């Protein structure tokens, strides 16, 4: 098996905040564990940890903008803390197989559910899960359906059309 090239190692560092932290703490020790060819080793050892972090933040920002479009209500609830919360999640979690905004948003909501459940819009999470599911019909309870800027309790009904597009209806109960 060939040793990793410089591009692959750079990608590892850009996607993983823990790896960047360890790299910043002791570059040579980290690089020694990767079995790199001498030229690649020199290139990687010369990477500036601060520049890596700044570039990584650019990538996180792109993910944040995509996720924000999928979770407008949740990000509004988080208000000025939305970007801070997203970095806490995204710095250490990078979707590997499915890089869609929906997958990223689902994972972000799962992260918030553990740490700050009040920040999540249940209605939005239900919608995300319906998008990702393959079933034709899905019914979910929500406590925060936005009706005239007031959160109302009710039932969300999702129906997948013949062309795969998702339709949504609400039954408000309180």
């Amino acid at each position, binding site marked *: 098996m060939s040793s990793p090239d410089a591009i692959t190692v750079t990608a590892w560092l850009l996607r993983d905040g823990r790896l960047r932290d360890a790299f910043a703490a002791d570059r040579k020790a980290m690089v020694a564990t990767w079995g790199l060819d001498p030229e690649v080793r020199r290139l990687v050892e010369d990477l500036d940890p601060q520049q890596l972090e700044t570039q990584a933040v650019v*990538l996180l920002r792109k993910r944040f903008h995509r996720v924000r479009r999928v979770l407008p209500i949740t990000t509004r609830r988080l208000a000025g803390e939305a970007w801070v919360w997203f970095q806490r999640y995204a710095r250490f979690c990078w979707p590997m197989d499915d890089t869609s905004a929906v997958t990223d948003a689902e994972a972000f909501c799962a992260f918030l559910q553990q740490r700050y459940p009040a920040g999540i819009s249940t209605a939005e999470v239900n919608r995300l899960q319906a998008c990702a599911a393959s079933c034709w019909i899905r019914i979910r309870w929500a406590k925060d359906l936005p009706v005239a800027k007031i959160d109302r309790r009710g039932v969300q009904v999702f129906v997948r059309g013949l062309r795969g597009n998702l339709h949504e209806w609400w039954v408000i109960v309180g």
Partner: protein
Amino acid sequence: MGAGAAAVGVEATEMVGLGYRRPLVDFIKTRPAGVECLEITAEHFFDQPRSTMLAELRRDFQLFVHGLGMSLGTPGPLAPPQLERFAQVVRAADPAWISEHVAFTRAGGIDLGHLNPVPLTLASLQVLADHARELQDHCQKPLLLENITSHLRLGGGLSEPEFLNRLCERAGCGLLLDVTNLFINSRNHGYDPLAWLDALDGGRVLQMHLVGYAVEAGRLADSHASPVQSEIIDLAREVMKRGRVQAILLERDECFPGPTEMAAEMAKLRRLWAEFAPRDEHLEQPMR
């Protein structure tokens, strides 16, 4: 025809245009003065390469096809499905040329979703040159390669202008010089953009991208959301002094202004042409 254009086999065009974006559709439909060409993003048409809209754009404008995700800098083969989808868009759009980036977006099974720099090594240069030739051959169109903005600098022994010169020679391609990216990198990394331009083979630069930059946390950022600042125009002027640019595109992606301000932005680009290429009025129609 400029020497650079001859080297990559394109006809001289001398056009001004903008990047095609959905929020600009209404503005584009008015056929505003100063918009002679459009640059479409290949990936935006992957699901509908033979769309009616693309056919209409091709009928009304000179098109260029710009890729974002081919990841030409990644070692290993280009992804065949992505290559074919790119080619399908190119066949539908029939652009004067295609373009991609001196960058990577994917590596080691990871899709970073954004353009990242490559090391300036001979090995990296060969990977890019091979992929550039493959893309040109598959699409049967001349290719321009674009410089990116990056907070991360990778070493490798070559300077960036030298790397680009050698890359264009090996790949038989031209350059799309993003003037804003050059300005941003020069300020963030502390070098002289004019010295950078002096070291570059200016004859290879056939197209420029211009857009306004932003300032975030004390550093410049390519937000693609601001009007073009005068210092960007000044740097673009220096590019044009050194070569024979054929097309100047406004690359606005966010915070789209109204039609009056968009027209004013296009006027900035047209004034650049007026300084270097006095236009005959009866030749206003683009060469197709």
